[in-house]
């Protein structure tokens, strides 16, 4: 018998038992829909995390002293200046950080991070200016008391676009507001918009003593190898700090792409886990199919006997029942894919990462549902094929 004949037979059979077929398929539908839905949630999460990490700058190297920071830091402003001369380094932003109260003339106050940095900070940390300008090189070199506000700080203080040019006090000292940053959105661990930026010399002079700095952010020029830049910087710092070839570094260089890779590994695992959990539902659906097919073989024992008397071979019966199971699982699978796409579109809309369409997931889910049909259909079909026609014909 040809495949078309078998499919026609299976479809006419399923049409006769619509309710039962629908209920049997429901297991597969739910299973496939959860696989498609949950995997797309996993992918959405991954996409969002990597997006946010990328927004921190993918060509970013963060250098920090190992073993404590602050005033005991071994990393100095001179180190930062020297790093700027390394080939491939596009921008260098040293950072010194402290907490301080920021107040407006109308006595709105907020406590936030005060970051002393250079004009390159904007490039290195991938911020954009919303209003006004960022700290200029001149302002940084001369240590002018100018401040750029993070978006959250501006909101907390009730300051809008008109605030550019006005005065605020930081830790009691007056500063001129020269710009407000675009909000960046939270990356999970800290709010990057809750900070104000002032020239590094100003923080050094008024807030944090000593010569150490907390971190140096380095932006590597496009087209340069991150690893090469990283090695050059490490070599430079080892020379500057007088570290021998066998000694341990007193600094560490942290690569943004490492974080990205780690994050996508984690969320990839998460996606797999979600898919794995969902496929349990699919297996349960498959068992539902097997159950119904076994019942069906029993109910149709006489029909099987008749078909054998009319000339059906064992494998005609086997393929008839197998195709029935496959039809159930495949139709269920396709409906499940559609449902899963709807679910993931809705979740994507609510969560804000949009609709993620992945043909791979759909192909895998469809293949999986076919496999479920085969695995759970073979046994009942074999039972049917093996029936002795004499006994089957006498079966009431």
């Amino acid at each position, binding site marked *: 018998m040809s495949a078309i004949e078998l499919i026609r037979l299976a479809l006419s059979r399923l049409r006769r038992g619509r309710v039962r077929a629908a209920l049997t398929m429901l297991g597969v539908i739910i299973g496939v829909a959860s696989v498609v839905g949950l995997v797309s949630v996993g992918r959405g999460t991954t996409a969002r995390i990597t997006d946010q990490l990328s927004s921190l700058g993918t060509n970013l190297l963060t250098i920090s002293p190992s073993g404590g920071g602050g005033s005991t830091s071994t990393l100095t402003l001179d180190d930062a200046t020297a790093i700027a001369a390394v080939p491939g380094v596009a921008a260098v932003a040293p950072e010194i950080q402290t907490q301080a109260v920021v107040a407006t003339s109308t006595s709105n106050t907020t406590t936030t991070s005060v970051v002393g940095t250079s004009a390159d900070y904007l490039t290195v940390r991938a911020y954009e200016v919303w209003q006004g300008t960022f700290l200029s090189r001149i302002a940084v070199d001369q240590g002018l008391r100018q401040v750029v506000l993070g978006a959250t700080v501006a909101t907390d203080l009730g300051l809008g676009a008109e605030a550019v040019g006005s005065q605020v006090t930081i830790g009691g000292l007056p500063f001129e507001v020269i710009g407000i940053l675009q909000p960046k959105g939270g990356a999970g661990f800290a709010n990057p918009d809750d900070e104000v930026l002032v020239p590094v010399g100003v923080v050094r002079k008024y807030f944090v003593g000593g010569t150490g700095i907390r971190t140096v952010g380095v932006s590597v020029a496009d087209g340069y190898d991150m690893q090469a830049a990283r090695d050059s910087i490490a070599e430079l710092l080892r020379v500057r700090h007088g570290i021998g070839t066998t000694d341990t570094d007193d600094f560490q260089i942290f690569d943004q792409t490492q974080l990205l890779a780690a994050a996508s590994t984690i969320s990839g695992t998460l996606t797999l886990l979600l898919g794995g959990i969902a496929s349990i539902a699919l297996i349960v659906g498959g068992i539902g199919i097997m159950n119904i097919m076994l019942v069906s073989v029993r109910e149709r024992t006489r029909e099987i*006997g008749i*078909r*054998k008397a009319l*000339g*059906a*071979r*064992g494998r005609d019966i086997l393929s008839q029942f197998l195709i029935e199971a496959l039809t159930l699982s495949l139709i269920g699978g396709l409906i499940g894919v559609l449902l899963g796409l709807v679910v993931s579109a809705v979740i994507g809309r609510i969560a804000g990462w949009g609709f993620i369409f992945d043909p791979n997931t759909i192909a895998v889910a469809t293949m999986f549902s076919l496999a479920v049909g085969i695995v759970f259909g073979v046994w009942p079909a074999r039972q049917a094929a093996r029936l002795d026609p004499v006994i089957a014909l006498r079966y009431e």
Partner: protein
Amino acid sequence: MSLLRLEHIGRTYDMGHVQVQALHDVSMSVERGEMVAILGPSGSGKTTMMSIIGCLDRPTQGRYELDGTDVGSLNDGALARIRSRTIGFVFQSYNLLPGTSAVDNVATPLLYQGVPRRERVKRATAELERLGLGHRLRHEPTELSGGEQQRVALARALVTQPALVLADEPTGNLAVHQGLEVLKLFQDLHDAGHTIILITHNPEVAAVAQRSVHLLDGAVVDGELAA
């Protein structure tokens, strides 16, 4: 040459600790174009006879030759092929496929012969029309009377032009006048040259046949004497 020949056929069922001998040393033969009744009370081994002649089962002793082939040596697939090509079954309880239209029921044996759908429907329709059921093609078994169902079953047995029509109590479930109608159909088939074996417990039904083989307790009593 005979169409079928049974030589010392025996069929023993192994029920674990008991062995049941359903047939014992049965010999008979049927010529082409003959109409033979196998007559016997219930429990005499009629059903086992039908199963063996119909190639649904194999004898445990003896030799069964159908249309020149030794059936005992065949595997399941080859037996199915013989059922498909050589034999047309008519059962007591009609045994039509439930939920399937008359025409699809009649077309089913052709499906297993690999005949294309269009031709199956054409031949099945022609067969049903020949038996006066042209107006019932799309009806399902539950929508047909007993007599009509048995005629559908007959059409299904004949659609493959089998060498042998094997009928098991063909009038068993029918009212008297319908039974007579069906027997008349068998007679017509016989007149048209079909080889027919009627299996029955009813001597009146057996009387339609040219000769009867009497079965009792799994053995032929006076089989060839009636010829």
